[in-house]
């Protein structure tokens, strides 16, 4: 991948960046674990193991230095993002398949670390939601309190999967109501009546989103990401959801709901900011982030999938090289672009 001048190198290694990204994810993971229980931690372990095994296998096949690439932590970040976007009670093989696909196909078949045109974690999500749509939409019911053993049994397939365990996500419930389209539906009453909604968005999920926001702000403070992508993402998502909300508040949810629902915060700070598959020029990053936010809204509200962030990021990944080409900053000493 190429980036425009100036070519100033910061003296940090890949592994240092990756460790800090993992640290930044911890507030979100903590909120997540307090919401759904230890299942998410089990999924993180499964994804990490799958990622490391797949990575080691591909490094061996490609005859690349094993220790150097295994310890850089990039596979672990991919694995964690996958675990955080998959349903927490998904069977172990689902997340293992997704992770293996991300590492083997989306990362190594395209040339390995730094060469992948698509975000590997989002490829895993897209592949699994296309291949296993039913399992990928089974999110745990609200207020479901299961112990570690019960959750382990469900994930490892030793206990039967019961329908009562899972329910519609807040975004799903809203879309179903919207698609009924008989005019009887009102967002404000829906939000007030159904117990899956909390103060701002999905109950409990809003605090997970807040945790990602906190981690993301810390990443920005550490200068590991620039402000462009998250700000553009949040701004475009707020703008379109706000416009439709003002136009018809009974049919469309408020911007706050959309910002704190689904993968919006994780996407804005951790996924769309991927330096490899995203844009590199400052103006390009703004366009990239805004495109992700806009597409995510359109897909999650009008599309057929429960959330739109993954497909929005993948579609913008496709556009990233062209955006970079068209937004080259002027060369030093030139008035316009060369």
């Amino acid at each position, binding site marked *: 991948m190429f980036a425009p001048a100036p070519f100033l190198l910061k003296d940090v290694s890949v592994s240092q960046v990756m460790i800090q990204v993992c640290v930044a994810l911890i507030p979100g993971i903590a909120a997540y674990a307090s919401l759904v229980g230890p299942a998410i931690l089990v999924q993180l372990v499964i994804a990490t193991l799958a990622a490391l095994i797949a990575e080691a296998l591909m490094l061996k096949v490609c005859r690349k230095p094993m220790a150097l690439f295994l310890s850089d932590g990039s596979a672990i970040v991919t694995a964690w993002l996958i675990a955080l976007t998959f349903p927490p009670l998904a069977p172990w093989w689902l997340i293992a*398949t997704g992770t293996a696909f991300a590492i083997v196909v989306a990362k190594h078949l395209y040339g390995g670390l730094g060469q992948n045109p698509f975000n590997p974690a989002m490829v895993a999500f897209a592949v699994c939601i*296309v*291949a296993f749509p039913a399992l990928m939409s089974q999110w745990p019911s609200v207020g479901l309190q299961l112990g570690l053993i019960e959750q382990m049994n469900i994930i490892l397939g030793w206990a039967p999967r019961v329908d009562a365990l899972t329910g519609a996500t807040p975004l799903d419930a809203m879309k179903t109501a919207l698609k009924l389209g008989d005019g009887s539906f009102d967002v404000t009453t829906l939000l007030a009546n159904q117990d899956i909604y909390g103060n701002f968005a999905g109950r409990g999920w809003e605090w997970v989103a807040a945790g990602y926001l906190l981690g993301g702000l810390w990443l920005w403070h550490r200068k590991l990401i620039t402000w462009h992508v998250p700000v553009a993402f949040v701004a475009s998502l707020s703008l379109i959801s706000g416009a439709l909300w003002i136009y018809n508040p009974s049919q469309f949810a408020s911007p706050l709901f959309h910002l704190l629902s689904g993968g919006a915060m994780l996407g804005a700070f951790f996924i769309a900011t991927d330096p490899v598959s995203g844009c590199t020029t400052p103006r390009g990053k703004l366009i990239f982030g805004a495109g992700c936010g806009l597409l995510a809204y359109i897909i999650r509200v009008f599309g057929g999938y429960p959330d739109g962030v993954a497909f929005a990021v993948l579609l913008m990944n496709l556009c990233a090289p062209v955006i970079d080409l068209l937004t080259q900053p002027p060369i030093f000493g030139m008035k316009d672009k060369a």
Partner: protein
Amino acid sequence: MITREEFKTIAENGIWKQNTSIVQILGLCPLLAVTTNAVNGIMLSLATIIVMALSGVAIASLRNLIPHEIRIPVFILIVAALVTVVDLLFNANLHELYLVLGIFIPLIVTNCIVLARVEAFAAKNPPLQSTFDGIFMGIGMLWTLGLLGALREFIGSGTILGGIDMVFPDLHPIQVLPESYPGFLLALLPPGAFILLGCLIAWKNWMEARAAERAKLKPPAPIATAGCH
């Protein structure tokens, strides 16, 4: 007549060196659409083989009578007539399979492979050679589509020989993976066909690179590929 050397070259080109699906990358549309199992891929390839062999002999025999300026419409007319024959044959004898393959049998007319071989080979060579060229190009397509179909079916639903009962009513698909296999739907969708076709192409290139390495020869120049559909 045909010499042994000529025959060998034609066979080698059709099956491996200029394989329609993994070297020329032609006819992707039927490839993506019908290779959801091996039987569909093989039967469509068989239909294509019949058309290619017959069009090869027909056009090679008429090649000196067809005016050069209007050769393409004439080729298409001849191919279309032959495809109609095959279409009716499938409809009459393999009706269930005909319903599955659907539009892709009539679409053999527009398949680049057929027109490409007619234009590149049959229009310049005697009938016997042209017939063999059509047959071996078709066999190249047959094993690739059959392999791709088998892989997609195995990964996608865990069976082999799905749809065999449409050709031989006494035979049944074999469930290879356990019944609890959830199925990997992606492999049965067009993206899965693209990914697996990419893997097949990589495998072929790897085989050639390895062969070249063993022979200690200079690696062959990359073969130009033409996109179509």
